[in-house]
Every structure is written in C-alpha cells, then in structure tokens.
C-alpha cells in the first residue's frame, strides 16, 4: 500500500468531512471505505509526485478523490496497472480490437488490459478521438460540457491533446462508445476525429488569430478541408494514414514539414516590408532583438551586422549604418531576420503557401521530410486549387499504394517524375536540393529520336562481328 497515497486521501477526507452536511458526510464515508478497499499500492508512481513539473500522478489521484466518473475505478486501476508496468518494465496493454461507433471506421482505438482480473476498472479501456477546433481555442462552457460528458460515460482521464491534435478521451467501455457519440453529436454539435487508414484529423498553427507571420488563413484552411473530407476522415479507404497540416510561415510551429503527408506552409512572393525607423531602434538598443527571446542571458549589445546581415543564409541583406536593404529576389524566406526584428520587418503582401508532400516518421523505410512540390499556391477560401491537388494525389495513392505504404514511400518507389505527372506539374529546380549525380536516366522511348526499334542487320553491314 502506498503510504503517501493513503495518508493523502485520509487527510483530504478528514478536512472535507468537517465542513459538509450529513448526507455528503455519509457519501464521503462510503467513498473512503471503497477507496481503501480498491486501492493499489503505487510506491514507484508516488516518486513521480515529487519535483516541480506538474505531476500526472497527483492529478490522477485528485480525480480518484474528487471525481464522479462513470468508470468509477478506472483512475485507480490505471495507476495500478501503470505501477505494475513500472515493476515489470513492460506494457500491460493488448492490441486493440475492432471497436467503434456505427458507420465510422475511425475515431475510436480499442484497448484492453492484459491483467483484467487485477484491474477490472480498465479491462476495457478504449480511446475516443474528438476533433479539436482549429488551433485549439476554447470557451470554458464547451470544455466543461466535454468534461461532463466524459464524466458521465468515461474514465475522467484525457489527453489535451493527442499527437495529431485531437482531444483524447482516454478509456471507456464498448457499450459507452455509442452513448458518448450520440451526446457528442446531438448536444455538443461535435464530431470524432480520424484513426487507422483514414485521413487523420488535420491540424494547424495559431495562424492569423494571434501571429503576424501567418501568410494564409491556416485555421480556415484546416477547418474547411476537415469539413470537405469528413468521409475520408471517418471511413478508412486509404492504403494507410494520411495527414494534412497547415503552417502559416516557414517557422513551422505545427511541424508539418516533418510529419504530414501533405504539408502546407505559408510564404510570400514579393518584398519583405521594412520600417527603417524601427530597424534603427533595434540598432540603437531601444527594442529588444528577437522579441526578447534571449533576455535571460547577457549576449552583449545587439549587433545587426553579426546577428542579422552575416547570419542571412543567402547574403541578400546589407546595412550601411542608416538603411537596411534586402535583395528580395535572392531571399529564400527563412524567417531569421523577421524573427530577430519583428517590429521592423513584416512578411510580404503577395501571400500564399508552398505545398510539400511525403513526410513521415521512420516506420518503415526510414524517416522522410516533406518534399517541395508546389513552390507557390494562392490560398483563399474555398481552397479549390488545393482540393483538386489533393484529390489527384489520393486517386494515385489509392490505386498504386501497397498496404501500409505512406505517400512518401510510394513517391520514392514510383519516382518523383511519376508523381509530377500525376499531379500535372512541370519539373522545377526548386523541387531538388541538387540535380542527380548518377547518370542513370530512365529515358522514355518518345524522348529519343527515332525510338528504340533498330535493325541489327543494318548494324552488321557496317560492323563486323
């Protein structure tokens, strides 16, 4: 028995009991009995209550103490099974079974404990993915409704948020899945997200809601494409997962370039806007460089030559002591100067996005970064050009992709050239870091004068054997 844990609960009940009415007191008394009966000893997890960073163990214990979740024993049994994993140094969860809500093939991940007798509260412990609103702003009344729903039908445990971006309801039983889904859709006007070989829940950066760098409306793009492709999100028809992510600028706060099959990254084609007076204010030390991001250490006086001009990767900037000049034609929009002097420099006004394809984590052929495919596309609602592009890509991948082959792997297997044909784009040096170094060009017959049919007899008339 975890001593710290039981003492903590006793103290808690002790202090509440003094100030509550007799009915509650009765309830508390019963709860204490139950808590003591069902409790697992968690000496190792108790070690994770120490230290300054928020302790998920303490949080789960407060849910055990105060929570009225439907799966009453789930938080305690979750700590119990986790403690067992801490002893055994291996997981105690089984492969998920096929569970879900009727008509959907995604949004629910089946999960079963491999020690159900010891931990009945988490024997069936399925996850539900709830599609987050673009860039995760919330009103508290909505969050409280979500909490009430998850209290009524689930474990009271969540992830805010999952890696893909969804609100994760962590742990409920099979019969409760439909209950959650019904109330989610009927009362909260809110749908589930994606899982499995589906379109996964799209996500975006904070965009124009609170950032000056966003070169298109990432939130609107994310929302409109999510709505357009609800069928693909909920019903698996793909070879494997497919992710879109929307970054507003090349800083890439939502990491689309590393982890989305289609990465949409805001950019601009014209000139960086310069406020020369503000540049002087940075040089004069009136404004903290990099928005104050380096304030915790004395890096010396701001030196525009050293920190901006000489760090520009293309060397396209100059400073003569009173005026900053940028040769915008040579700029690759890396964002460094804009990040260092946000009050002096602003992104250009001819804004849109670069579209990159094929990023993925290592499983299976190794990690891939997304490849620049469409250098520039205007990005205005309703984003028709982007949708046309996506649908061409999907048609090809659904036709040619092998089971569990990500788009990036298919592009490697069938070549970038083939991919460009599919999406009807002309090759462009912007699509490569450098041209190929091997000369093994797969010439096509129609590219070679006279084709490939030749006469060996005519050859032999001129060349003896």
């Amino acid at each position, binding site marked *: 028995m975890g001593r710290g844990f039981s003492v*903590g609960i006793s103290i808690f009940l002790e202090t509440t009991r003094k100030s509550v009415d007799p009915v509650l007191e009765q309830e508390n008394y019963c709860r204490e009995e139950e808590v003591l009966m069902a409790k697992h000893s968690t000496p190792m997890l108790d*070690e*994770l*209550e*120490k230290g*300054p*960073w*928020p*302790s*998920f163990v*303490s*949080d789960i214990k*407060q849910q055990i103490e105060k*929570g009225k979740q439907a799966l009453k024993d789930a938080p305690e049994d979750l700590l119990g099974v986790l403690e067992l994993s801490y002893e055994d*140094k*291996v*997981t105690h*969860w089984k492969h998920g079974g096929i569970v879900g809500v*009727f008509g959907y093939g995604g949004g629910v991940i089946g*999960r079963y404990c491999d020690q159900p007798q010891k931990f009945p509260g988490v024997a069936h412990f399925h996850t539900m993915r709830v599609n*987050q609103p*673009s860039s*995760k*702003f*919330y*009103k*508290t009344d*909505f*969050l409280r409704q979500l909490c009430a729903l998850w209290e009524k039908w689930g474990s*009271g*445990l*969540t*992830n*805010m*948020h999952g890696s893909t971006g969804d609100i994760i309801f*962590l742990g409920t039983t099979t019969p409760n899945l439909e209950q959650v889904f019904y109330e989610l859709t*009927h009362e909260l006007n809110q*749908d589930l997200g994606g899982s499995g070989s589906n379109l996964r829940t799209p996500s975006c950066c904070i965009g124009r809601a*609170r*950032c*000056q760098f966003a070169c298109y409306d990432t939130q609107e793009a994310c929302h409109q494409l999510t709505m357009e492709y609800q069928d693909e999100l*909920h019903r698996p028809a793909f070879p494997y997962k497919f992710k879109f992510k929307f970054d507003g600028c090349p800083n*890439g706060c939502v990491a689309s370039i590393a*982890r989305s099959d289609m990465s949409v990254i805001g950019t601009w084609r014209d000139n960086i806007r310069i406020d020369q007076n503000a540049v002087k204010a940075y040089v004069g030390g009136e404004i903290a460089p990099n*928005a*104050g*991001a*380096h*304030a*915790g250490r004395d890096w010396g006086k701001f030196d525009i030559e050293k*920190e901006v001009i000489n*760090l520009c*990767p293309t060397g396209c900037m100059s400073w003569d002591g009173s005026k900053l000049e940028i040769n915008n034609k040579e700029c690759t929009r890396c*964002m*460094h100067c804009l990040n260092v002097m946000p009050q002096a420099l602003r992104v250009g006004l001819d804004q849109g996005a670069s579209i990159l394809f094929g990023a993925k*984590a*290592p*499983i*299976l052929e190794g990690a891939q970064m997304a490849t620049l495919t469409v250098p520039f596309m205007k990005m205005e609602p309703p984003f028709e050009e982007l949708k046309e592009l996506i649908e061409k890509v999907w048609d090809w991948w659904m036709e040619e992709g092998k*089971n569990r082959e990500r788009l990036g792997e298919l592009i490697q297997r069938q070549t970038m050239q083939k991919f460009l044909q599919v999406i009807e784009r002309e090759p462009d040096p912007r699509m490569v870091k450098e041209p190929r170094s091997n000369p093994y060009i797969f010439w096509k017959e129609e590219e070679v004068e006279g084709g490939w049919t030749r006469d060996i007899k005519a050859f032999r008339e001129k060349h003896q054997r």
Partner: protein
Amino acid sequence: MPYDPKDPLKDRITDIGPRYYKEFFPPVIEKNYGKWMYHEILEPGVLAHTSETGDKVYTVRVGAARLITIEHIREICDVADKHCGGYLRFTTRNNVEFMVDSKDKVKPLMDDLKSRKFSAGSNKFPIGGTGAGVTNIVHTQGWVHCHTPAIDASGVVKAVMDGLFDEFGSMRLPAPVRVSLACCLNMCGAVHCSDIAILGIHRKPPMVDNEWIDKLCELPLAIAACPTAAIKPAKTESGLKTLDVNHERCMFCGNCFTMCAAMPLADDVGSGVAILVGGKISNRRSMPKFSKVVIPFIPNEPPRWPQTVKAVKNIVDVYSKDAKKYERVGEWAERIGWERFFEKTEIPFSHHLIDDYRFAYTTWRTSTQFKF
C-alpha cells in the same frame, strides 16, 4: 431524446466535423484577426501581441502534463473564467495559454497560476516555455495506454521536465530547444526532427507464440511487414502453421508486432531509451534536419529514469555553454563537427551510431576534412 441502444441509427448525426474555431475566440482575438503586427516576450512565459488597431493581447503560457483529468481541466476553466472572460487555448506542445486584453490583468493572473499546486507539491501551472529556453515535451502514450511501447512516456517526461525545469522558466539558451519523446519507433509523436529526442527502442527479436499465431494473425501480412525479410513461414513439431524469425536480420522495428499480436518484442532488459539530437523543423537559417542517434541505449529505470535525465541535461548544458547565439543544437553540432560533439559531451561513440540501413552511405564522411 437520449440514445436508444435498441435503435442505434435513430436520429443519427454524423460527419458534422469539429466546432467552428471562431466560436471560441476571445473578443480581442476576434476583433484583431489577421491584424497582428508584432509580438514581444515580456518575461519567460508572457507574450504581448500588438495589433494594427492598437489593441494588445497578453498571453501567459503554462506547462501541463498531456495526460490530464477532467478535474484539472475544470480548474483550468476556473482560472480562465476568473481572469480571461472564459477563454483559453492549448498549444501544439501541450501548453495552456491564458489571454487577457490589458496589462493590469497579467499580474493577478500570474499570481493565481503560481499559487495553485497539486497536493504533493508540484506546480499545477508552471509559467514559461517561450523564447530561447526549453518548452514542454511533446510525447506519446507509453505504458499508460499503448500496446507497442518500449518505455513509459508520461513518467519519463515528468522526470526529464523536473530536471529541465529551470530552462522552462527562463530564456538563457542560445536558441529554443525542443525536446520530444516517442515510446517506440512508430513515433506517433514524430520526434525525428527534434533538438533532443527520447525514443523507446527494443533490442530483442520478437517471440513467436507458436500455439496461437495462426489463430490470431494473417501470417502473410506479418511476413510482408518485415523490412529486412527476416520472417518466413514455418511449422511447429505438432504441424501447426507458424513463423520463423531470422534473429540476425532483425532490426527491432516492431512492425511485425503491429501486424500480429502473437509476436511480442517488449522486454524488461531488452527495451529502453535511445537519445537522438540535432533535428529541427523550422526553416530558419538552415533547412529542417533529422535528429541523429547519439546514445544507442539507456536501460528503462522507472520511476525516475536517472540516466536518461542526466543524458538530456548534459547535452543541454554543454550546448548552452558552447553554442553561439541563435544556433540550434543541430547547427551547433554541425559547426563544431560531430567528433567535437562527442568529445565535448563526453558521450562515447560506438559502432551502433554508424548508419547501416537505407542510404547509410549518405551519412559517412567522404572527405579528409576532420578534426583531431
């Protein structure tokens, strides 16, 4: 009408998508949408954004465990109701942001956040995660909720963030340091482009549950799942169909286990932590980079993973002392050379760190330029 289990399709609503994000905008965000001019970091964890209209929004960013309860979410709501008109947001890296529309509201909000602790003493709302510091670790499920992990996630993150806590609440590093954790190679956390990645790996080939495998799995799928063709059909002595794994060829990716539950890999001593460094996703100055494996294995050490914490802290400390302003971990390592990286961090270099998978050659040094 409530849900009727006897008639599940009655009044069914599907494919309505998420709620429209603009429903959840605080008034100052709604009014200044697309009009923001610049931002300032007033102190660690506190941002001020200025609009063309002259409006300002002040944001206080706090860390959170990704695994949180509805009791905690309700407390987050209490704070937002009290100080922020009932609005808040979460970031991509599991932080919570509380926004107010005037500067005089910042201090009461911060004081309130600082005062709230869990019963055992940890902070409920540590303020920080901005600028040239360490922000929250994005991570996966681990032993809390997944069948394939090699390590826990939430516990390792708690221990590492306790170790890096001072860097979360300050901005004294040369550049932002993004730490991420994925508890197996599937990397649902996509840690392969992080300044420092903590990755769960297996080191023992799968066991084959001979008596059950043909009942539980589609054998051809498990065979096809293997990237090194190490799995082939076999028969048990009693004549049951099973699979045979060529252990020499196994690279411990776990893809077969993903396809077939009768081939478990996880092991108390076989599974553990690998550390990767030097990745980034930003296009700032240099192009995005993958993280590179610098420590091939650290054993699982629940509950506080001391060697993992020490390894991460060491890399951050050496980087902090040696890198130039604006240099990310990967840019620093490339400038000084990887031979210097191993020398300065005192991390031993072993054969495990030389690539021998696809495109391995692209990472070998084909030059006489090196440092003694």
